[in-house]
């Protein structure tokens, strides 16, 4: 955990088309790393490579080294299922399980992994919902269907579901793109809270968001990492012309 996540020489393909070229970043533990760039530049693919979700898509593959606390995610004999337990993920569109209640959604990860003890589940669900800043809004009706919540609440429910299994890293793939500004502000506040317990990598379209929540930022363009550095430096004194063009709104 102390090392966070270190990525080097990551390449990814959809069929014969290469979508990521030699990406390398260091996401320090208990920090927030933001990834920015125009649509289709490979940010989402990149985070999906980190917990081996990329290969779930037919025809997709990835090579490279992703060190999670010193252990290579792409090492021989590594079980992607175990990796995904250690590296959680929150998606662009809130996707609570529609047939499950709020409680069951949060408990799903543990319960389906075989943990049945009621007390444990109760504790975990409450802790996760508190971490996701949703507890006060749902505590009176944990049996309501997860899909009955508002969009912002659903996304926090998905965050609670992801942190309930106590991952070391949380990947967030444009978690606010379907939310209004108030819900977005809540999630950003939450990110700052969550980083006490885990390492966060967040993909965002919104450069202000990257500037607000992250310590490190990477700029992607057409499958390549153009620049990676301390957030403040990247936004105030970009090293690369393309980064400057992007953050000043000249394209993208």
């Amino acid at each position, binding site marked *: 955990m102390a090392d966070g996540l270190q990525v080097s020489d990551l390449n990814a393909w959809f069929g014969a088309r290469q979508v990521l070229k030699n990406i390398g970043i260091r996401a320090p533990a208990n920090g927030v790393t933001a990834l920015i760039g125009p649509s289709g530049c490979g940010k989402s693919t990149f985070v999906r490579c980190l917990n081996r979700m990329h290969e*779930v898509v037919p025809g997709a593959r990835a090579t490279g080294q992703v060190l999670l606390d010193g252990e290579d995610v792409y090492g021989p004999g590594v079980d992607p299922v175990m990796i*995904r337990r250690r590296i959680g993920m929150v*998606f662009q*569109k809130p996707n609570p*399980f*529609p047939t499950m209640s709020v409680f069951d959604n949060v408990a*799903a990860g543990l319960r*389906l*992994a075989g943990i049945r003890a009621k007390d444990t589940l109760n504790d975990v669900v409450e802790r996760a919902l508190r971490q996701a800043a949703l507890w006060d809004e749902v505590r009176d009706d944990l049996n309501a269907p997860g899909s009955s919540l508002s969009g912002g609440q659903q996304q926090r429910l998905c965050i609670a579901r992801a942190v309930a299994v106590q991952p070391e890293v949380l990947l967030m793939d444009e978690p606010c793109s379907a939310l209004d500004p108030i819900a977005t502000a809540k999630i950003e506040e939450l990110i700052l809270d969550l980083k006490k317990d885990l390492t966060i990598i967040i993909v965002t379209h919104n450069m202000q968001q990257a500037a607000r929540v992250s310590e490190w930022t990477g700029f992607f363009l057409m499958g390549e990492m153009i620049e990676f550095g301390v957030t403040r430096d990247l936004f105030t004194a970009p090293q690369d012309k393309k980064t400057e063009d992007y953050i000043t709104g000249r394209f993208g």
Partner: protein
Amino acid sequence: MKPLQKRVIVNRLMNFLAGAAALLVILPLVLIFGFLVYQGGSSLNLAFFTQMPKPVGEAGGGMANAIVGTLILIALACCVGLPIGILGGLYLAESRDPRLPWVVRFLADVLNGVPSIVIGIFAYTLVVLPMKRFSALAGGVALGVIMIPIVLRTTEEIVRLVPASLREAGLALGLQNWKVTVRIVLVTARAGIVTGVMVAIARIAGETAPLLFTAFGNRFWHSRLDQPIAALALQVFAYAISPFDDWHRQAWAGALVLISMVFLVSLAARLATRGLQRQTR
């Protein structure tokens, strides 16, 4: 005539034709149901549901054995058709194999079109000949085979409707693939699958041909599942071709009970679908 007027007239004409066609769809069912009530309603009484068929010449009696027999045959058919149909449908929806699902899908559609009497011959060869007697089991196998393609295809369609994002959410939680499929995808699709099962049951409940030389029919209570068993459809058939007026009336009543059962099952299926729509909204 101005173009606008013409358009309005064409619009009204098409509206009328489409509405009339829609009414024609339900007309046969209304006529059949009305005729059954008219012919068989008078023979429907408590005895019809609780008593056994009377010997030839004695009035009264009922079809209790056939009603129970039909229910048992449906249950047996479900034992054959549901596991194969649901698991197969799940495979078709989830498989990434480029060829096998295509072949299975195509052959299932062909199987769906095979005349039910041919499926009866299949069950006769497969079950009746080796056992050397007609049996409820053979009838259940025949009906179950008819259910398979229906359940298979609806399960596949419904499972495909489950958004990929839910599957990904499960995988991202660190769950094994099969657990995601069974505990999340299948559970999300359950209402739709139930509908498919109901449709399949409605379809087989009235099947007669495949039972002629498998379940065979029985004027008495069946004793065991490896013995011939009565079924409503068979009893209606036997009574309808008999020379006795009383039996004819009972045949009408039997048909009425059968169609009512199908009606109830279809209604239940419809209500289950409404539940699904509520869930996904």
